[in-house]
């Protein structure tokens, strides 16, 4: 099957979805594609921190100021995706007091509000802080739900002008003639069918893969390093707001609340292959050991999962990993002899809107569209099937419904059948046969204490009942989903979480026979 659109956007992360909505607001029709699904890369593998910029004041004033401006904008236009919980920067005994002393001045240089607190005031705000606090400052950190953010943007773009999103669609090459890309050669990775997508403009927003995609268009200009960051998720919320360690960035020095849980991170490891990475036990131990110095409560905390994302860092000036700039670059590809191709790369979740604006400005100008960018002021509406990734949202909804036929499929996170059905029929991507994994990505399915042990089975049965599955494919997808969840639980299996995995194996192997499917056939 072939597609024709004004703009093809490659990469369903925050940036790609942001470009899609920005262009749709200017009346430009887009097709957004992703090799896997929305938020499959860095946009789904982060701690959901909406940076005040405080994190970067000591190394990169420009990025810090950008974070501050963008954070303020997003708090205004997309409040449903944000928990404006505030944040602290905290130094404890053993940390460099000089670094701490310079912090307010560095914040001022980037225009970031920074309020000094006494140790007692800090502990009054965050009772989990230890007696060893030597310096504390309050900053306007917040948290953002990156899944909801992307879903709402795609949903809005689709509603605005019929722009579309296609999951599991990978780029394999480009047809180029006379300095223009004529078409993208793609493939539906689920059916194996080859696709030809014609468009007037092509945008590469594929994050850690953007170098590879640019190379398919013959450009060697985009040099992106894949930098793996690993985080761990606790079973309960440990802090009211964000807690940052006040020292040069290291592992295990940010604790970010996310609804009913907290996320601790982050490690930083440069990797060769952005398609092949998983959190390791060594990383988890390092994050936890570092984090415990700032928050001793973490030593006895139950963690339900570890996960990793790949930061797309622009390989500039020889720096990599933590030292690399969090800034972004818009590649116009004029030097590559291409007049209708753009790559937007680098940057951060917090600055995605600005990145999208820059890319959309270029694309609109190339199309002769003079409508200005509106994402700075236009509120992001809440779309159908897009509001279920926030911890607690489905539980609140289910309790408000009081419908006895609306059974709960996921008991840990209280995700009801009605929620799954809404996602199945209305969420972005629903046109393309949604299975367990796609539904889990758009909800809290599989994210609670049991990590999908029960709900994967209940949701799969429900999908068979709904006709979403009618062959052995459904059970195979359930197995793949469970196997993938395990890569995140494996590094945190001790204490209270270990029996969950023992139970899961009793269910998945003993009761469901998932290790024996092929033996039967």
């Amino acid at each position: 099957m072939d597609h024709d659109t004004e703009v093809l956007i490659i990469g369903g992360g925050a940036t790609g979805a942001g470009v899609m909505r920005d262009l749709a607001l200017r009346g430009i029709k887009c097709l957004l594609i992703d090799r896997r699904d929305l938020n499959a890369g860095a946009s789904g593998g982060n701690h959901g921190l909406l940076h005040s910029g405080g994190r970067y004041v000591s190394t990169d004033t420009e990025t810090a100021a950008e974070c501050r401006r963008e954070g303020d904008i997003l708090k205004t236009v997309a409040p449903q995706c944000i928990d404006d919980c505030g944040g602290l920067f905290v130094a404890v005994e053993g940390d460099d007091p000089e670094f701490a002393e310079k912090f307010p001045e560095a914040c001022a240089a980037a225009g970031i509000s920074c309020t000094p607190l006494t140790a007692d005031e800090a502990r009054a705000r965050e009772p989990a802080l230890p007696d060893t606090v030597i310096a504390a400052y309050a900053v306007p950190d917040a948290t953002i739900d990156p899944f909801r953010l992307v879903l709402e943007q795609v949903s809005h773009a689709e509603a605005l002008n019929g722009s579309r999103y296609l999951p599991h669609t990978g780029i394999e090459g480009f047809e180029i003639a006379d300095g223009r890309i004529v078409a993208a050669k793609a493939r539906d990775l689920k059916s194996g069918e080859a696709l030809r997508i014609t468009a007037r403009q092509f945008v590469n927003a594929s994050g850690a893969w953007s170098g590879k995609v640019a190379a398919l268009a013959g450009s060697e200009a985009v040099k992106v390093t894949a930098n793996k960051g690993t985080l761990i998720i606790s079973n309960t919320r440990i802090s009211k707001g964000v807690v940052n360690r006040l020292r040069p960035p290291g592992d295990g020095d940010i604790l970010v609340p996310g609804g009913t849980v907290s996320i601790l991170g982050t490690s930083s490891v440069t990797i060769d292959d952005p398609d092949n990475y998983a959190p390791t036990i060594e990383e988890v131990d390092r994050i936890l050991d570092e984090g415990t110095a700032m928050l001793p409560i973490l030593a006895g905390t139950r963690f339900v999962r570890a996960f990793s994302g790949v930061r797309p860092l622009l390989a500039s000036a020889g720096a990599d990993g933590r030292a690399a700039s969090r800034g972004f670059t818009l590649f116009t590809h004029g030097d590559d002899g291409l007049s209708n191709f753009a790559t937007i790369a680098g940057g951060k979740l917090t600055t995605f809107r600005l990145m999208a604006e820059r890319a959309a400005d270029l694309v609109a100008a190339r199309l002769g569209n003079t409508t200005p960018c509106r994402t700075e002021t236009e509120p992001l509406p809440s779309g159908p099937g897009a509001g279920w990734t926030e911890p607690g949202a489905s539980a609140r909804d289910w309790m408000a419904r009081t419908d006895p036929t609306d059974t709960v499929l996921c008991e840990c996170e209280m995700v009801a059948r009605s929620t799954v059905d809404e996602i199945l029929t209305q969420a972005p991507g629903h046109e393309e046969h949604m299975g367990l994994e796609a539904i889990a990505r758009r909800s809290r399915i599989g994210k609670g204490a049991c990590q999908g042990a029960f709900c994967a089975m209940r949701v799969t049965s429900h999908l068979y009942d709904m006709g979403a599955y009618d062959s052995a494919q459904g059970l195979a997808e359930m197995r793949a989903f469970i196997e993938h969840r395990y890569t995140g639980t494996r590094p945190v299996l001790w204490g209270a979480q270990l029996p969950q995995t023992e139970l899961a194996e009793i269910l998945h192997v003993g009761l469901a026979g998932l290790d024996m499917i092929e033996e039967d056939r």
Partner: protein
Amino acid sequence: MKHPTRRVETQLAVIGTGIAGFAAALFARARGLEVAQFGHSGALAYTTGYLDLLGAEHGRKVDDPWAAVAALRRGEPDHPFTHLSDADLRSALTGFVAELNAGGLGYTAPGDENLTALLPYGVTKKTLSVPETMRPGVEALAAKAPALIVDFDGLQGFSAREFAANIAATWPGLTTARLAFPEMEGKQVFPEVMARALETRKTREEFGARIKPLLGAVEYVGLPAILGVNGPDAVRADLEERLGVTLFEIPTIPPGVAGIRLREMFERLLPARGAQLEPNLKVSTVSFDDGRVTLGLAGPLENLEVRADAVVLATGRFLSGGLGSTREGVFEKLIGLPLRQPGGRDGWFREDYLDPDGHALNRAGIPVDAQFRPVDAAGHPIQPQLFAAGAILADQDWVRSRSGAGLAIASAWGAVQTL
């Protein structure tokens, strides 16, 4: 408030109320010993109801469990089965099934070959003995007989369409139907509640009347396991007479009825056999002195102090609370017994969840001697009057090898032989 302490004297104390604990208590009573049994875990709720001896090895299904056990003894010299002969295993399994039958739960006689039994999502498994309510499913599958699979409005985790779609390669042509369960229309339904409802004649009448129009030309009707908690064979016989077809049950996800049946049956049978059973009391201390054992238990109204000549530890693994873990290692929670376990956490679990060789941590546990007495690193018994049975034993992976019931029953049998 200080609770009064009740003192109990017995010959054998059994800690644990899973299959291993119940089997140990029954086998000890059969040998004429005084028995007191304690436990608090509900892990029996996770069973399918099937009694496995050995259903898989290295990710392959096993048809002849006796040949596979012989191979296991050669290949895994530390496996608990190496302490028992085939005659021991047969005595244990046959004796246990006889007790189940006497307790009112029909089970097929353990034979020479494994049966191919049904699982809830249309995959099959090899097992040695099945409840009579599930036996026709084994036969219908073998005959690829025309069958109707029924599921229910509001019942989670069991879909007739899912079962049929996944078993189609081996058992094609199944038909499916969905019913509203009588007097539970328009709400969530649970297997245990449905099962208890079917113990009344009125519900069976209405239930039968709803299935009857769907039968067509089928010979069998498959249902999730809901045919009564007490006396399921009578519930099945009554419905079969009403419908004129053969019924079979398919296990469901927890909390499933098969485990509830076993638990309730044991809780009736053990006292009837003369054992003292406290199924909701947790043992908090165990000490050894003067060649005897003392257990301390804290109850809601009174504390118990149990003095026994010997004790069988059948407390299960992590889920049941027999084992615990930290980032540094695994420990036995009640007595602090030495465990055989893999080195660092990196070696506990394989990278692939379903790796056919299973996870090293699942083979961690209590090493025992030929009398099932926990031993130290040098192989010497920790205490002459301390025995262990069931999933807590080292050097076995009961989930992967489909040997949970067999391991529990056989090790319990072995543990009481020298008493």
